[in-house]
């Protein structure tokens, strides 16, 4: 059970596949338009329950409870070896002129 007052994420189905706009690509039309947001859980509930939350600006929204305090998981990824030679190749171009200007 997730306690009332917890910071949670809810999911809403905005449009079912059959309700989607006619002009969108086929691969998108096959999928529902979903929406996620976060708020304080109004009443104790389990994951998957339809719940009400109060958002950070005080609106009450309803949706399926999908996560308890979900973390931010984006980061910097791994270094990209292909990029590591970039500085050197630009420097080789810039350095002769920099040296010349210094000597002047």
């Amino acid at each position, binding site marked *: 059970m997730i306690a009332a007052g917890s910071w949670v994420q809810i999911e809403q189905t905005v449009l079912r596949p059959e309700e989607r706009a006619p002009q969108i690509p086929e691969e998108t039309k*096959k999928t529902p338009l979903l929406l996620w947001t976060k708020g304080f859980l109004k009443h104790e509930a389990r994951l998957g329950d339809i719940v009400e939350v109060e958002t950070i600006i005080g609106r009450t929204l309803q949706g399926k409870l999908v996560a308890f305090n979900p973390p*931010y998981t984006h*980061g*910097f990824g791994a270094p990209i070896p*292909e990029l590591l030679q970039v*500085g050197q190749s630009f420097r080789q171009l810039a350095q002769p002129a920099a040296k010349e200007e210094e000597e002047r």
Partner: protein
Amino acid sequence: MSRAGKSYHEVMARRNEIMKQSLGLDYSNFESGGLAFDYEAMMSHGGYTLEEVRHIQTETGVGNTPLLELKNLTRAARALAPKGKGARIFIKDESCNPSGSFKDRRASVSCHYAAKKGYKGVVSATSGNYGAAVASQANMRNLRTVIVQEVFDSRGIGQPEIMEKGRKCEAYGAEVLQCTVGPELFYSFLLVLEETGFFNASLYTPFSIAGIETLGTELVEQTRQRTGHAPDAVVITHAGGGNVTGTARGLLKAGAADTLVVGASVDLAGLHMASDVDFNRKSFTTGHTGFGIPFATLPDRADVPRNAARPLRYLDRYVTVSQGEVFCITEALAVLEGLERGPAGNTSLTAAFALAQEMEQDQIIVVQETEYTGAGKHVTAQLTFARENGIEVRLGDPAEQVPGKNIIIPEHPSLIAVKDVDLENLKRSYLRNAMKGQTTAPSETDLAFLAAELRTDVETIGIWLKETKG
């Protein structure tokens, strides 16, 4: 209050009414009944002069960002250029704005207007830096913020760049609604406007564009101060058209009528912006041709009845660069100039590095923005994500890039080049779009409007129209 129906069709049918309420602006005042509308009358609505915009922005710490000379990148460009060529490259460090991008300029006037008009909050549909800008400016004006973002594909996977932009909005205390791919996000946006009664802080209002004009005037003043003359060229990352329009209007207001206005976008040809599959096969979520071309050729596709961003009125030249080239220049900016910025905002810098090589050494080329960088919004984050999504990342010749299949980091700086987009083709395409569904011939007012829209004369419009019919 009686609640009208909330279905997609019911809400979309009320869009004009919702817009009017949420903008405090009746666009029908500027309409002429035909194709034409009075653009300048719309732009002067609200009565914000350049000086007033400066004052509003000073109140919330926006603008007056440093203009930095990129000496090492200039030296590198000169080493590659023909003898005597290689313009001095300057950059406007817009990351110094409160939320880290030039978007604070766009948000500043909207939030001022919303507060003055008594709105309790602001809403914006944006997956970009603009969300944080709105939230930040709104906080300074004691307004609440809701941001509606397009974030995830149907697998629930989101670009790290957009995840960061969402986090930043939440850090500013905004309510963030994160949607899956699709233009019907607009429906959710309208619902929020209707339910909250908040102001529509659209990117495309006259307020938003007026906010960017100061960027154009500042950079002219700073360049004059540093070099004795106005910039010979200004390069502007082009997506929805606001950046080009506002900056170019600012250049004109500063009297820099001879400065070449160059738009630059990342080439994402072949990728559909509303495709659930293509969504995560791109490494740029803005500044790309997927917005740049449709918004130039059909500006009123925006989330307001009439778009104040009309780039074809101002562009002298429009070029594209590839994703790999922008990542390469982003790395070079960090390593050679000590500025870790971008990457999306460095689209214009990439173009400037190539364009400087066409220009004389005593000329000045100004790149008009940088943006903050951080977790998610970083070359390493975005290239790691690209690899995880099956995109090949390799060294080579960027001319061989295929958007959605590979990202090619130039194996030498000499391979960085711009591709010109034929502006006349875009103008003809604009005209075809404008004439769609028109049953009567354009009036004289319409023709004059079209000529202004496409920066040409009525005669040329007549010739193009004949070709369209032919």
